[in-house]
């Protein structure tokens, strides 16, 4: 009985470890009575079921036939010869080896043919039940957890047999429960096929039959072998315990190995945060501290500069224009009060100009700074990088970043250089710098550590290395919740076709800080339902327009929303007007690429060609630039040139 309970535990612990049900929170943006944009949650306007329907629809691409799922079932447990050889023709252990060993254990469990048959039937019953339940969506357990428990169940069964407990009481129920676990593993294999609803039942039956067929094949090889072994006097007594012991060791190793793959045990990964997480003081606490110092002595330039700096940092975090304006007026006051030897204020002035998108003025300012004191030179170079990137001068940005890294080998400067090298398509050098930045992380600087993970994950995402990107994003989110990381995670999950997961995360990001970019992504996720798509897009446009009015000049988000709404050409015309305004101040490869996209959408291929060529001339070699270059060439009918851009992307 106790043994049975243990196995019951083995089955139900993974059930307890599964995630929470999907959050059904809804959101909407509306103008309240004071005319201010607000956000509303749990508004029942949009039923979630439509999204699920959409996912089902997208799954109906390739539907395998009855025969194919049957063979898949046989192959899944390693009972096909092709599972034992690699594509190059070399021998290998099949992926279903764990299942083969389980069948071996069943055969070794003794008690005569009748009892063996009974156990195999119990096992089949168990896995048929769980396979059906999991495939039909009644239970959902992450595959990595299931795999751990499968290995553990084999190890446990092997231990009983090795210990000579051949005839276990309650054996039938134990085997049935083990089968139940293994069925969950089969279900994961079946899920990878993304079967449409109407094909699930037949696939379920054929796959299950395949597994049975596979088991029979294994037993056909196994039983004569075992029978022969029992004929040898010496081997008779040792066959069962010795084989079971080997299986037990192997399965224990698998259990350990699979446990290591669980997220909670993956702390040793290079992107994992290796310091204790100390929450930094809240923005308001810091501001009020400097505010008090400033009030004590309003003539103290150091106090003014510190207050201005923390207000600017708050603006960067929350986008609060009020904080920005205050930082600017304090900065002006500081510079008037003390014209010389006021490096901090001069540095901040350059950053403020850059944040206001007054790039040419910012660059002029940095040129003076670079001639100044050591501190001025350092901050001048930092601002020069952002400003140079904004006007599309990647080479200048790279030179400034090199100088900074040579001056001070700080993690933040390595990260800046990595980002520029990536934009230039120099991936190996970029990787090298990222590695250096991670090695130089400092304890307690959690803000930077999150930024490091955000930029690294974004780089991997843009390269199409989705799993790495997800890992780095998760490691960043472990430090603290952050809306930029959440949005990036949603993009990554979207690329992994986990649309519901992506949507959930976007809701959370929107709760943290409502942004048009989130609504635009929600619209894209719901593109198959016209009504929801338009609903989100309307709200995104509303919010994007508000963002243009209440920010220091971020127009590109509105451009993106308008381009999504591009069916009506007046939206596209407005988008083009906005980009032209943006190009007056920021002529970066990124803006030129969006410009090219919108022009192409409007059917103006020649102008789109010129725009993307400008981006390429700026040295832009990111995925977006090359992809757009290829699209333009296809539109112009130059397929071979398009191929060149695609292959450059691949080589990068």
């Amino acid at each position: 009985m106790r043994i049975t309970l243990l196995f019951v535990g083995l089955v139900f612990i993974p059930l307890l470890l599964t995630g929470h049900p999907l959050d059904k929170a809804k959101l909407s943006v509306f103008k309240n009575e004071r005319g201010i944009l607000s956000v509303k949650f749990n508004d029942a306007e949009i039923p979630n079921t439509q999204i699920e329907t959409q996912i089902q629809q997208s799954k109906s691409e390739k539907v395998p036939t009855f025969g194919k799922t049957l063979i898949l079932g046989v192959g899944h447990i390693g009972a096909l010869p092709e599972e034992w050889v690699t594509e190059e023709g070399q021998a290998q252990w099949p992926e279903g080896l764990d299942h083969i060993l389980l069948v071996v254990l069943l055969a070794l469990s003794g008690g005569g043919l009748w009892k063996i048959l009974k156990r195999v039937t119990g096992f089949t019953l168990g896995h048929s039940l769980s396979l059906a339940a999991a495939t039909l969506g009644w239970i959902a357990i992450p595959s990595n957890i299931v795999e751990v428990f499968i290995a553990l169940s084999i190890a446990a069964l092997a231990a009983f047999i090795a210990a000579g407990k051949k005839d276990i009481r309650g054996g039938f129920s134990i085997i049935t429960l083990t089968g139940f676990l293994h069925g969950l593993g089969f279900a994961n294999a079946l899920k990878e096929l993304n079967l449409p609803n109407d094909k699930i039942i037949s696939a379920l039956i054929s796959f299950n039959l395949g597994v049975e067929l596979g088991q029979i094949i294994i037993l056909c090889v196994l039983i004569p072998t075992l029978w022969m072994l029992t004929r040898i006097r010496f081997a008779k007594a040792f066959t069962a315990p010795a084989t079971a012991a080997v299986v037990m060791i192997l399965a224990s190793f698998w259990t350990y190995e699979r446990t290591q793959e669980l997220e909670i045990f993956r702390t040793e990964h290079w992107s994992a945060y290796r310091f204790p997480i100390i929450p930094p003081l809240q923005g308001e606490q810091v501001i009020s501290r400097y505010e008090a110092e400033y009030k004590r002595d309003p003539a103290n330039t150091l106090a003014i500069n510190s207050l201005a700096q923390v207000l600017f940092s708050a603006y960067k975090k929350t986008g609060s224009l009020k904080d920005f304006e205050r930082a600017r007026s304090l900065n002006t006051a500081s510079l008037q009060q003390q014209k010389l030897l006021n490096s901090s204020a001069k540095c901040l002035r350059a950053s403020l100009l850059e944040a206001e998108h007054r790039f040419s003025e910012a660059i002029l300012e940095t040129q003076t700074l670079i001639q100044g004191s050591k501190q001025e030179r350092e901050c001048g170079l930092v601002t020069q990088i952002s400003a140079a990137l904004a006007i599309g001068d990647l080479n200048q940005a790279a030179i400034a970043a090199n100088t900074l890294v040579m001056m001070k080998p700080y993690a933040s400067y390595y990260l800046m250089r990595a980002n520029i090298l990536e934009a230039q398509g120099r991936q190996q050098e970029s990787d090298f710098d990222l590695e250096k930045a991670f090695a130089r992380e400092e304890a307690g600087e959690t803000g930077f550590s999150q930024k490091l993970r955000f930029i690294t994950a974004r780089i991997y995402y843009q390269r199409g290395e989705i799993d790495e990107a997800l890992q780095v994003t998760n490691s960043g989110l472990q430090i603290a919740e952050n809306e930029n990381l959440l949005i990036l995670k949603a993009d990554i999950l979207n690329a992994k076709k986990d649309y519901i997961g992506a949507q959930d995360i976007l809701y959370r990001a929107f709760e943290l800080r409502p942004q048009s970019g989130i609504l635009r992504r929600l619209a894209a996720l719901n593109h198959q339902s016209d009504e929801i798509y338009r609903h989100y897009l309307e709200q995104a446009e509303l919010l994007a327009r508000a963002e243009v009015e209440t920010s220091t000049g971020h127009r590109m988000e509105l451009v993106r929303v308008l381009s999504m709404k591009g069916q009506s050409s007046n939206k596209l015309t407005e988008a083009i007007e906005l980009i032209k305004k943006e190009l007056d101040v920021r002529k970066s490869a990124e803006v030129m690429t969006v410009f090219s996209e919108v022009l192409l959408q409007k059917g103006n291929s020649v102008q789109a060609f010129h725009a993307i060529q400008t981006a390429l001339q700026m040295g832009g070699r990111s995925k977006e630039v090359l992809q757009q270059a290829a699209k333009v060439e296809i539109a112009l009918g130059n397929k071979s040139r398009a191929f060149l851009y695609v292959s450059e992307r691949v080589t990068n």
Partner: protein
Amino acid sequence: MNLKLIPAIFVGCLTLAGGLKASDHDDGEMDGKGRSLNLTDLYAFREDNQTGNSADSENLILVMNSNPRSLPGQQYFFSSNARYEFHLSRVLDSDKDKRPTGQSDIILRVTFGAPDVNSRQTINLAVIRDGIEQATSGNLQTSNIGDSKAGSFDAQLAQIDGQSIGVAAGLREDPFFFDVNGFFKTRAAIAQAGTAAGAAQIKFASLSTSHNASASDFTASYNVNSIVLRVPLSLLKKNGNSVFDVWETISVKQ
């Protein structure tokens, strides 16, 4: 032990600081740089100067502060990627007024491990004398923000050559007092005046003693990360010298 030790050290610091316009106490708030790598003030004195106990006269106290203007209530750490070093030149009594050599006869190198769950870091202290490095033994840790009072030196001792170096490291209130704003204003006024003759016309009111009442302490209620060592002079002395030039560095790998 020569009582002129402190002025000698002071001269050493200022001369070696070279191009610096003033004490490099604070580089101001900046986004991009590692706080824990930012040096601030250095203090060096004989222990008896503070305790008044003549038995302490054979100990030299060295204090290196970093991470200036750190906010109270927030835990800050030492870098686990950097070397925090006190450099000392031995100076013969007869040479004490000569130009410092800038030669690191002795380096006291402090490195830190990554913080543990209690926000404490292990401290490693190595002594490098005339190019020969010796690690010290002893279980040394930084204090964390939860420690209400800094522990005494006797609590943490690093053993070397049968002698003990007292070690304490962690957050402390910045002891530096300076009306930096007044100083910079005066400096700026001098610079604006342009010439030495013009400078002479500047009234140094803000620096005069009568102005003390309005002088503000710009480090008041800010913390710094302190490394404090109590080193027996016998570990440092050679050939009967009793004067040392002292300076500090924080270095990271390129």
